[in-house]
């Protein structure tokens, strides 16, 4: 066998062939168009990131880590009336904490309500009601956020104040609900409730979509085994839809973290880290930018850009953590 053609040797395997195809012209054109469309969002996002980084660089370099750990926002001017960057201090820690606090509160209020709403619409609601409700919920998702803010300010706030007092009375021993000063209005709690109402439609919509795609054969298999509707939902629909619900919650979280006007309307901006959700002090990066933007000089504007960059990166970070969680836990059951 030695020295002969290796192709017929029983111990050797042939080289792997390269498998190619020659696409047609129309396919090439379409691929080009699709690629442009697909990459454009990435390019736009990249440009925004570069813009914010470029604008905020000076402030970030001067403040260092203090920008995200400090809570002082002071603009100092020198004798000529120009902003003195070295003497000023910019720190957004309180706003970052406020952003996370309000958004987390909003998601934890909105997710249970949305999931129940989606389950009701998919499995219990009569046809006519379902159509009406789906239309209303979709409309809510497109509702201007300033209206939510105004409604929150005029209608919700007095009520939430009452709830907040109740929570404080019975759950005040939990550090999160502790109060040192009895100021209940314009608290992160109110902002969280308003944000929750804003993101319920998004999470409901995504959850409903995924629940309604539950494979019929699994649903039937469960019913054929004598399942009640609730036990069928628990055994089939929830495992199937879990990752979709988390995805919807992430969309909602993204919106809650970036929300500006509604939070601005119902929240007291205070430059001090506050974990106590019931106290009327807090903030949110986006609404701080809105508050300061109108009267900011060139340097302060740069600082606001830097704040925007941090918010951008924070949102990105939270989303990628969530995606990791989804892909770790959501794989089974599909």
């Amino acid at each position, binding site marked *: 066998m030695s020295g002969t053609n290796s192709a017929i040797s029983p111990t050797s395997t042939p080289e792997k062939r390269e498998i190619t195809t020659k696409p047609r012209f129309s396919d090439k054109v379409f691929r080009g168009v699709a690629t442009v469309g697909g990459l454009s969002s990435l390019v736009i996002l990249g440009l925004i990131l570069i813009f914010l980084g470029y604008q905020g660089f000076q402030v970030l370099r001067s403040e260092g880590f203090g920008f995200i750990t400090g809570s002082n926002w002071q603009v100092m001017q020198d004798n000529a009336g120009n902003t003195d960057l070295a003497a000023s201090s910019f720190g957004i820690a309180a706003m970052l904490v406020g952003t996370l606090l309000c958004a987390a509160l909003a998601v934890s209020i909105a997710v249970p309500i949305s999931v129940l709403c989606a389950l009701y619409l998919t499995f219990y609601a009569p046809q006519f009601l379902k159509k009406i409700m789906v239309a209303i919920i979709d409309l809510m998702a497109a509702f201007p956020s300033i209206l939510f803010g105004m409604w929150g300010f005029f209608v919700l706030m007095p009520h939430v104040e009452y709830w907040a007092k109740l929570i404080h009375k019975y759950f005040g021993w939990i550090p999160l609900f502790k109060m040192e000063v009895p100021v209940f209005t314009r608290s992160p709690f109110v902002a969280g409730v308003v944000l929750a109402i804003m993101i319920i439609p998004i999470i409901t919509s995504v959850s409903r979509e995924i629940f309604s795609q539950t*494979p019929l*054969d*699994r649903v*039937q*298999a*469960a*019913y*054929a*085994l*004598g*399942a*009640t509707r609730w*036990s*069928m939902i628990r*055994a*089939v629909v929830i*495992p*199937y839809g879990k990752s979709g619900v988390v995805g919807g919650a992430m969309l909602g979280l993204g919106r809650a973290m970036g929300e500006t006007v509604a939070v601005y309307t119902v929240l007291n901006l205070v430059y001090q880290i506050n974990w106590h959700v019931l106290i009327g002090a807090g903030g949110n990066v986006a609404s701080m930018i809105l508050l300061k933007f109108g009267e900011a000089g060139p340097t302060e504007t740069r600082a606001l850009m830097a704040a925007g960059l941090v918010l951008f990166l924070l949102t990105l970070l939270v989303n990628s953590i969530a995606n990791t969680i989804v892909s770790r836990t959501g794989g*089974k*059951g*599909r």
Partner: protein
Amino acid sequence: METKPITSSLSDVANATKARKQPGSGALGVGLEARGIHAWFGDKLVLRDISLDFWYGTVTALIGPSGCGKSTFIRTLNRMHEFIPGAAMAGEVLLNGQDIYEQGTDVTKIRLKVGMVFQKPNPFPSMTIADNVLAGLKLAQLKTENKDDLLEECLERAGLWNEVKDRLSAYGGSLSGGQQQRLCIARSLAVRPEVLLMDEPCSALDPGSTLRIEETIQHLSSSMTIIIVTHNMQQAARVSDYTGFFLSDGGPGELVEVGPTSEIFSWPKDIRTENYVTGRFG
């Protein structure tokens, strides 16, 4: 084909009744009886006046061309028919003399007694093999003394135990198609149904798996009532004691003929049955 010897006392009663009973002439009292079943999808009548009795301890095959309403018919027998929007039915289905469509009936209890195996194997992919078999207990909120014994017994009866006993904690989706279908049979058995409906259980499977499932059916038939819809006439001849032939001439499906399988395949009374079983159409 010989009718197999039946030893169960319950089926002796059934056997005795069988001889003098004409379908639709009165309550049998045991087993499953369909009386004048009509079925609609929306305004379209798809089944007309089907009356059929299924005796305990026997296998009944339902044959007929596609679209003649066989599947619709067996789905009326465990109330799966009503899941389809716009579906309606008329007639009675008596399980041990009780109408399963009677007002105030708990439908989940009916489906525990009348189990179903579907055309496409449909194990729950989020559950392990063991959890799949025992899923019915959880779904129907039943209690059992010894889960391990039940698990082994059901997998044994479904002819799957030897193949999976070492990997009960693997996911159901990791099995082959034929194994998945036997897993689904085991899952149906775990809630101890009296009747098992099988809607073309082998149509998505290879011949080897088909053979295993036919053996399983033979094995199970002594202790329960089995109704199997099949397009495979050899299969009907191999596994069933009775055969019903359904046909639709474009309108609603009707039951043309029913009788012992050997008669249907050797001396059918109706010319349409003869044409179908000899392969002249369908």
